[in-house]
């Protein structure tokens, strides 16, 4: 069965959960209670919001470019959702097995930028246009260090297929894994598994790469501290100011979808994908116990549990960052990307290449 039938309902359920979680996390950080009225602890709040959005009038401004305006949310959502096609979910269950996996993912989520520019330009409002320009400038800028970070991982793993990269990072690996990737020490971690075989410890050069990737992921999904495109205090709602009702919900859905997609990507590329974080310690076969034998039903559920668990944890961290740091200024945003992250990513590219030649 295709992973499509999992990801579509999962994306919807996740968004309902994430919007609720976002409000509760912000409430906790700001010492409030958050939504409390609808359902127990306000748990039905997002469901109620969704139903409300479904019944809201769809407003298309007279001065706007009608068809572009209507088509933009469709393009934005489709571009983000198509990215899930190559994401593996668990042991033996990946979406498309195409060999260009992560390359395709980069290409298809770039279409998101086109959709945002369409949305901002076609509405013929100053707020949306400024929001769209900022958004596009930010997204294409941060795509450079983001893609460089992916190249670093590809250099270490020698594969573009996300499922192949997943297999390398655990006890099911067929290639030898050494402690911190240093072959000369001769400490094999194939039997140990757990977090020791995750990419960030399999090749510690990927730890700074992971940090850069995380920062870029925040910028790519337009999250604070990089939420200038929709800076509420200056631009009302940014590029989606003129949207209402379910079209607006689609834009929001794809924003949360982008967050989920990048969290999945982070877990797969750096944090061991569907592999368990617990290593085997002597007779305590924690890694075996928490991943099951390959091909069994238990391994299937353990894999999905670990991958989704890691991704949701990363999303909680993203929310934590959002409610902790203030927004950047435009000039800070650009200098952070071009003067710090991009040179650092180029340097790490060389380090990863040398690491691959020396250590593996």
């Amino acid at each position, binding site marked *: 069965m295709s992973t499509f039938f999992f990801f*579509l309902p999962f994306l919807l359920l996740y968004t309902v959960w994430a919007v609720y979680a976002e409000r509760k996390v912000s409430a906790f950080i700001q010492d409030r209670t958050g939504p409390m009225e609808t359902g127990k602890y306000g748990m039905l709040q997002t469901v109620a919001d969704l139903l409300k959005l479904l019944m809201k009038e769809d407003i298309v*401004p007279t001065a706007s470019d009608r068809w572009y305006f209507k088509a933009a949310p*469709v393009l934005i959502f489709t571009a983000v959702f198509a990215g899930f096609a190559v994401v593996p979910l668990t042991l033996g269950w990946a979406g*498309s097995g195409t060999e260009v996996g992560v390359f395709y993912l980069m290409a298809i989520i770039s279409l998101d930028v086109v959709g945002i520019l369409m949305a901002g330009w076609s509405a013929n409002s100053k707020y949306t246009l400024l929001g769209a320009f900022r958004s596009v400038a930010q997204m294409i800028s941060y795509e*450079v260090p983001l893609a460089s970070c992916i190249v670093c991982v590809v250099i270490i793993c*020698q594969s573009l297929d996300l499922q192949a990269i997943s297999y390398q990072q655990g006890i099911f690996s067929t290639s030898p894994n050494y402690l911190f990737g240093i072959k000369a020490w001769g400490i094999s971690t194939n039997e140990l598994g757990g977090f020791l075989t995750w990419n960030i410890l399999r090749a510690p050069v990927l730890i700074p790469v992971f940090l850069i990737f995380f920062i870029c992921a925040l910028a790519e999904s337009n999250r604070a501290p990089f939420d200038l495109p929709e800076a509420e205090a200056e631009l009302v709602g940014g590029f989606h*100011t003129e949207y209402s009702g379910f079209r607006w919900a689609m834009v929001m859905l794809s924003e949360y979808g982008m967050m989920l997609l990048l969290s999945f990507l982070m877990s797969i590329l750096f944090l061991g994908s569907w592999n368990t974080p617990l290593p085997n310690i002597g007779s305590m076969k924690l890694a075996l116990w928490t991943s099951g034998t390959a091909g069994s039903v238990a391994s299937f559920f353990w894999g999905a549990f670990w991958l989704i668990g890691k991704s949701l944890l990363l999303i909680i961290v993203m929310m934590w960052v959002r409610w902790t740091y203030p927004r950047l200024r435009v000039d800070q*945003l*650009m200098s952070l990307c071009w003067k710090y992250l991009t040179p650092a990513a180029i340097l790490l590219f060389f380090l990863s290449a040398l690491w*691959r030649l020396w250590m593996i």
Partner: protein
Amino acid sequence: MQVAIDPSLAQIALFILGGLGFVMISLLVARLIRPNRPNPEKLSIYESGEEPIGPAWMQFNARFYVVALIFLLFEVEILFLFPWALIFGDAEWQAATNGRWGYFALAEMSIFVLILAFGLAYVWAKGHLDWVKPNPTISAFKGVVPEGKYQSINQKYSQFKHGAS
């Protein structure tokens, strides 16, 4: 005639068409149940409650062009890095060439990347990476309360605050 379709491409097509279908169907459902009562005020562009002045389709800051050009430069670079990254560390070729293959491939790619890094350095030195910075002006207003007074009050209360803990 039977056309063989790569199953992995069929999966991707399913995701694209399925995503498209989902949006279309949900927008259709919304269309069936939502009200539609437009009026000129509702359909005007939002500009913080004011009448919108002129269209938004006008000239914009040329810096965005420069950013787009630099992006193109680097995105093409990364496009070339992907296929290279897949083969440069190939263990078999490494063994067959006594370890020279990897270093040779890396040296070749280094030239390419360094030329582009030089491009970044050029753009940097030319100042195209510097966005317009806000230039805050400090007010020249002089109050009747001497400035030292504020300082002494602040000091007094900060001592009180720290002394309590």
